[in-house]
């Protein structure tokens, strides 16, 4: 088992936990957390492939991850703002009840 495999296993586990959280929880904040976990799983992959993968050149993986973290931060900010707006509107943050956009 190479370090690369180890890293991939960890990131897969992290991704599955995140996916489960996003699909199974009804609290919108926890859904957001799940999504965040999945994103970070992807970040680990970037780092792992950069560190152990076939090409070692410039800091490609590092830069991708930095962008990804920035995007994740923005996403969290927007997501939390949405959640607050939803809360003001329906007095709870249950995702199942936020269905006003249905066709």
């Amino acid at each position: 088992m190479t370090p690369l495999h180890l890293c991939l296993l960890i990131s897969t586990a992290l991704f599955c936990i995140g996916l489960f959280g996003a699909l199974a929880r009804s609290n919108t904040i926890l859904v957001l957390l799940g999504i965040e976990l999945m994103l970070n799983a992807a970040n680990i992959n970037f780092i792992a492939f950069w560190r152990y993968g076939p090409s070692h050149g410039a800091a490609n993986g590092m830069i991708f991850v930095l962008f990804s973290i920035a995007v994740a931060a923005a996403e969290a900010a927007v997501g939390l703002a949405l959640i607050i707006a939803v809360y003001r509107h329906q007095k709870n943050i249950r995702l199942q009840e936020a269905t006003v956009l249905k066709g």
Partner: protein
Amino acid sequence: MTLPVQLLWLIPALPLLVAGIGALTRHRGVALAAIFAMAGSFALSCLALAGALQDPSVHATYNFAWFDLGHGALRLGFLLDPLTALMTTMVTFVGTLIFIFSLGYMKEDKNFSRFFCFLSLFAAAMLGLLVANSLLLLFVCWELVGLASYLLIGFWFHKPSAAAAAKKAFITTRIGDLGFLLGLLWLADSTGSLLFYDGGQGVLEATALASLSGQTLACGLALSTAIGLLIFCGAVGKSGQFPLHVWLPDAMEGPTPVSALIHAATMVAAGVFLVARVYPLMSADALLAAVPVHALTVVAFIGAITALMGALIACAQNDIKRILAFSTVSQLGYMMLALGVGSSTAAIFHLLTHAFFKALLFLGAGSVIHAAHHEQDIRQLGGLRTKMKVTFATFAIGMMALSGVPFLFSGFWSKEAILHAAHEWDVSHLPLYAGLCAVVLTAFYMTRLVAETFFGKPRSHGAEHAHENSAVMTAPLVILAVCAVLLGFLGTPYWPWLQKTLDPHYEATHGGLGLMLLSIGLVGAGLGLGWALYGRKLRTTAAARDPLDTAAPAVMAVLADRLGFDELYAATVGRLNSATAAFADFLDRYVIGGLVTFLAQLGIFSGGVNRQVDEANLNGGFDAVSESVRGSGLFYSRKQTGETHGYLRVVAVAFVLLALVLALGGVR
């Protein structure tokens, strides 16, 4: 001093100017302006006539381009020849008198100035029609004349009958105009020109005529025959010929001066004028032996039928204007008959004399109606002989001119000319016999009209209080009466000035004295018959039944104090006469009127069907396509539940599937 052809447009332009002014202002002075314009046009027409008479065989023309048709200019033009000059002189002269008469007749109407505006428009269009050297310009003015007639018949549009009559007149004449338009297009297509005379290139000149009569259509007709008959359709509509005469009696809903000017003297004669104008075209097929029918034969028979039928119906009418209207139909039939049998000079001669004495009769009727507080039923009138001496005297002159009382009156000479022409026609003598029958009938119904209206006792309030009208109304009557007498002497067989002017090759035919005596005898018979039935025993009350209407009392009375066979004979013949007239009236009202109604209903029905097709099928197809688009949109919008978890699940499953596909598909 003469009027050059380049300035001929001034004749219609003067009334047109007044019509334009009248459209903008409601000042009563429009009437005076209209009269002066007409008088000015009359003066110009006299100058034009003087010029035309210098050499009657010349067709002076002035042509100009109107617009570019795409493959050559469309040219219009003016034409000055004796026919035009005589007609414009007649129209402007009669028109001026009728305008003056209208001053009195329409005095109290609140749309006084509009009336003169419309009259001027009519006069302009009519004069334009006469001076045209192009079938197209003629058609344009022809339509405008129809429009002016529509406006004037419907002048009192608050009367539903007037509004309906105006519409009926317009639509009925438009049916004829459709034929005219088609003939015009066909002619334009075949010859490339619509000018009558154009230095050898015109449609009425030898080159074009030879080419037109040389071509034969699939049905065996010569091309010129087909085109001529289509153009004749227009004349049938405008001149109230059988079977399109139905509008003319109804047109009497308009003010009486209108009836006099338009529906007696001028516009209805436009059809006759048209046929006379295109006479070379109509007669181009005359020398062809192998054709099934000649255009002029059709004209002759239509004219004969109309002459007889109009006279028969006139016997059964009670409205003074309707009697005169049917009489007009009958007289126009005479003119067509004359054209058909080959004598356009006789037709124009009768047209001119008829214009004067029929205008006189209508204005006389208008004078009576005006005096009798708009009473038009001859059974309600009576006894006006002493109350309205001038009107009576002039009306009697008109009546004698129309009946054809010999020698002194113009109608006699022009009618003689027609009968002689019919006698010499070698195709058939049926038109002659129809004409002779109509002679008797005309004398008969005019006698009845005069007897009922002017003799006996007044039978209504209006007739009792009638008194002679002012000079503005009687003066035109007197002038017209003088003309109704004198005009006949322009065309007697002994001095055929008019005929020679119109047709330089005219040769006076002598002989036919027997025919003249016969027709004099027939006029006498008609007058005697009428007087015997209506004059000798005058009507006493309005409700009294007409002697023709119910036989028994009349026959009894006749038998009682006459002992004579002749009067019994008169009564039975009269009854037959009445029955035939009633039948013709029936035919007119139900068969021909019914046919027109049927066609109209057919049109409306197919319109309804089309509408259904449009709304159900064409529209339905469109709606169905739209509906299916909307349906599929609805289907997909149901898939959008708003459940975020649902979406996430779909994304996850799709992700897994994608991963599987990539893994199993062995990418790379």
